[in-house]
């Protein structure tokens, strides 16, 4: 059935990597005995992912029609459907590209850490390819069964990868929370697919597309998808596990979990809401935009509170996911109001942000890994001055920090620009409440972007600039070439995609067309590969290349003029320390991460987080040191999870009584239950 001979090779190319990755996982099990296997597994994973990237690009560029393949495995009589269309190909590109750089970085990372303070290679090695295989399977699955198997493989592999650092004190808590959230998410998706497929028992996507659920079912599916995929992606308030679990894994795995796995969740949202669920209603997009706006602002505020480098990055992922979900919501709203061109613009903005985030977030996690390798600490308040000790890492980190802060002409800005252009088209919507909501959402995006810049000034300034705040930071050295190469590849792409974004946007245009039946570009536009001028946008254009050239030209002019005219004399001296002759050797008198966040904590955190700074100032004459303590509470825990936990506790206390009963009582109970069931059956049947 359904094998399209012309398109067969591409899908075949996508299926083989999964099998090879699983085989590599098996090879990895042996790694404990032979360390060289580590190189083989990472090398193999990198090559396989590279091949998958190539195949995905070819499938997108060739505008291949959707291809299906039915494998005689899985559930009896149903089999395993595999399906490759433009949307899958796009996400395969993102996931496997992350796989390539993570393999490269991971190989260097594990060599650097062999016998060191991070995870030994044993537990990570077999799980790393398995994790990638699970994500690949989700993306090429053509039925709910394959999708959920892949989803669970992805979740379980990443859960075990989180547990690979089990010697660290917070890890067990992080892993437990992750397992609970992952099970919750999978259960939601399972129910959603059940509702989508209806009573026929055919779980292939084709059958799901043909089945039309009623309104109540649709509402339930939308909410379940937002809960299920949202818990994986990190939508507030389901984000609580991200800042714990993402940093706990080894850094290249953190990069994949934060930069790539969240994208698989985005894929689930797009696949179900745009493709499988039929004609959208405007409220789906409204709910998504509201969730996205809250997520974006809260995520970046969380990030501003964190002193742990990797935790900060994980929180910033929450913010970026919020931006993507806002874009998806906008696209749904416009699709529902039959303006597909603007929907295409919004969806393109979302998908571009998916690529961008996967690039700069993996880059920044590799940077965190490099810093961890060099210094042994992830605490911002113990870093500083790394720009002198790790010059190349510092440059690459600066690229990542500028890109994620949406500075032109880097890639983050292009995504933001497209999103704003889509938001500016909102007056075309017929729904009044939505128009007001979208203006507020626009303000939330702007606020989140500005706060993200503050967050990454804080990150870069405290980790790389200033003076070392600990001996470890003072004695750090540059990391090895494999790790630097792993960081350089995404950094170069951040610049390239910022300068020339249109080739990429054109590349994944088939995916956009497949979802909203329109593309964002006008082919009549002048030099469309150079100018970013979406037709649906209100007469605007942007050109990163010309901007970069002009900036370069002006800089050359400026430097030449200054050095011709100005004095070239330069003298090194001590910094002005308000009267202190020598700066303090531990560097504690400089601004740290917590002090940098203080104004923002006071301005924004007071109401949201109940953030309080307490100063314990001794009386004059008292010799004990003054102390500043900062406290804040997470509203997600206070309002959502703690009450749920308490309710569950209360219920278990009540149910506990059932454990200690006599046989006679158990029999009575069973009899009563039987009667009750029979009554229910009798009532419902007639």
């Amino acid at each position: 059935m359904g094998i399209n001979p012309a398109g067969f090779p591409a899908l075949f190319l996508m299926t083989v990597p999964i099998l090879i990755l699983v085989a590599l996982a098996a090879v990895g099990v042996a790694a404990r005995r032979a360390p060289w296997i580590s190189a083989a597994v990472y090398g193999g994973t990198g090559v396989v992912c590279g091949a998958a990237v190539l195949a995905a690009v070819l499938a997108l560029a060739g505008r291949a029609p959707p291809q299906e393949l039915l494998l005689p495995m899985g559930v009896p009589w149903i089999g395993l459907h595999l399906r490759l269309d433009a949307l899958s190909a796009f996400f395969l590109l993102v996931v496997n590209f992350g796989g390539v750089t993570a393999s490269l970085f991971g190989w260097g990372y594990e060599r650097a850490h062999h016998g060191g303070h991070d995870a030994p290679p044993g537990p990570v090695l077999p799980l790393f390819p398995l994790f990638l295989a699970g994500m690949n399977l989700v993306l090429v699955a053509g039925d709910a069964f394959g999708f959920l198997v892949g989803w669970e493989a992805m979740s379980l592999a990443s859960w075990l990868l989180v547990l690979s650092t089990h010697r660290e004190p917070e890890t067990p808590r992080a892993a437990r929370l992750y397992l609970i959230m992952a099970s919750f998410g999978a259960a939601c998706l399972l129910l959603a697919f059940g509702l989508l497929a209806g009573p026929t028992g055919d779980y292939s996507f084709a059958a799901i597309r043909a089945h039309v659920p009623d309104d109540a079912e649709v509402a339930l599916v939308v909410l379940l998808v937002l809960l299920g995929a949202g818990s994986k992606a990190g939508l507030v308030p389901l984000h609580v596990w991200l800042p714990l679990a993402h940093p706990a894994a080894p850094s290249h795995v953190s990069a994949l979990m934060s930069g790539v796995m969240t994208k698989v969740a985005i894929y689930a949202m797009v696949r179900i809401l745009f493709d499988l669920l039929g004609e959208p209603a405007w409220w789906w997009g409204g709910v998504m935009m509201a969730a996205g706006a809250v997520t974006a602002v809260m995520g970046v505020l969380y990030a501003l509170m964190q002193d742990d480098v990797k935790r900060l990055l994980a929180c910033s992922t929450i913010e970026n996911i919020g931006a993507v979900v806002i874009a998806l919501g906008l696209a749904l709203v416009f699709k529902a109001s039959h303006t597909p061109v603007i929907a295409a613009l919004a969806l393109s903005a979302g998908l571009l942000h998916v690529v961008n985030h996967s690039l700069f977030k993996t880059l920044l996690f590799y940077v965190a890994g490099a810093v961890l390798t060099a210094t042994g600490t992830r605490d911002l308040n113990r870093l500083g001055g790394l720009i002198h000790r790790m010059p190349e890492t510092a440059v690459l980190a600066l690229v990542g920090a500028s890109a994620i802060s949406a500075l032109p002409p880097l890639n983050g800005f292009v995504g933001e620009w497209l999103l704003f252009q889509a938001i500016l088209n909102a007056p075309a919507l017929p729904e009044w409440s939505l128009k007001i909501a979208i203006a507020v959402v626009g303000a939330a995006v702007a606020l989140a972007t500005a706060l993200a810049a503050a967050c990454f000034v804080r990150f870069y300034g405290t980790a790389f600039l200033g003076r070392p705040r600990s001996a470890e930071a003072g004695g750090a050295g540059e990391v090895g070439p494999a790790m630097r190469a792993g960081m350089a590849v995404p950094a170069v792409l951040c610049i390239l995609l910022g300068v020339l974004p249109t080739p990429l946007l054109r590349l994944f245009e088939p995916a956009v067309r497949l979802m909203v039946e329109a593309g964002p570009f006008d082919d009549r536009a002048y030099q469309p590969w150079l100018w970013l001028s979406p037709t649906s946008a209100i007469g605007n254009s942007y050109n990163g290349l010309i901007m970069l050239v002009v900036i370069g030209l002006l800089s050359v002019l400026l430097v030449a003029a200054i050095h011709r005219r100005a004095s070239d004399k330069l003298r090194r001296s001590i910094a002005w320390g308000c009267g202190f002759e020598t700066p303090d050797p531990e560097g504690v008198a400089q601004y740290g991460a917590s002090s940098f966040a203080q104004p923002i904590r006071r301005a924004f955190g007071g109401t949201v987080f109940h953030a309080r700074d307490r100063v314990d100032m001794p009386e004059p004459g008292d010799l004990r040191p003054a102390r500043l303590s900062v406290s804040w509470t997470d509203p997600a825990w206070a309002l959502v999870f703690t009450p749920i936990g308490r309710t569950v506790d209360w219920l278990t206390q009540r149910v506990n009584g059932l454990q200690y009963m006599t046989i006679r009582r158990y029999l009575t109970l069973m009899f009563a239950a039987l009667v009750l069931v029979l009554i229910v059956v009798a009532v419902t049947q007639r």
Partner: protein
Amino acid sequence: MSMLAAILYQIVQMLLVLALAPLLTGWVRLVKARLLGRRGPSLLQPYRDLSRLLRKEVVLAHNASWLFRSVPYMMFTAIWLAAGLVPVFTTQLALAPTADLIALIALLGSARFFLALAGMDVGTAFGGIGSSREMMIAAFAEPAMLMMVFSVAILVRSTSLAEIADFMMSGTVGLRVSLALALIALVMVAVAENARIPIDNPATHLELTMVHEAMVLEYSGRHLALVEAASMLKLLLYVALIACVFVPWGLATGSHGSVPGGLVSFVAKMAVAGAALALFETSVAKMRVFRVGEFLGGALLLSLLGAIFLYVSRGCEWWTSAMTPRISWARWCC
């Protein structure tokens, strides 16, 4: 209009903003001094200050990195480019289709990003305090400015400054509540972003009260000259931006107005704006750092309100014409 003329105008614009920026700063200082009953320095004093700084040697802290030394150049270039994008005397600028208002705000954001990093590079408490306060102010000011852009863009259906100026001059706008709100918000943001009095004091050297000065405390010689010149350019940029969006009359466009007329009208607008700023600065007191949030939060709410009004009122007319491609104007360049 021809491409050559546009490139020529663009070059003239880049040089003009460079030449006029210290004059504006000198003018504000002069008017302020007169309002305070002092004679004040000459109008040309800022030029002299800059050239004196350029001739001085650079004193660099021991652990200042390459970033610290290159930030003045980066930030000056970003602000210079941004100032070059705002139509000062004509809308026929070669770079107009390259970057719109959103890109302009992002360019200013980049300049701020790098300056804040430079503040943290030497590793003194002052640099850090300046950087952290600057980013807090930006966290309010940038969204307020973007919402102002939203209001204008929805009205004009473009975020391109040239198109905005053309539209505003066409006379079809009329008086609008949203525009008034946007103007107030933009003025408030301009005051904050240029480190002017209720938010920050450009003349102070009392460390605990300053924001911008604290960040650049370690700069000297040519670096300081660049930083100072960049902040002068930024003041000019905001004056030009307010003039271009809200009082564009006098600007030369493709159809009417002449270039000399545009130049004269801009100098006149600059004089008025500088005098108004000086008057404002002498009549208010500086606020505490944590009041800034309330001040700029007000700006953010005002601009958001303006944008919401427009989102709601612009629906129907929009509906019919949103689909026409309007990129032809981008074709002549390149």
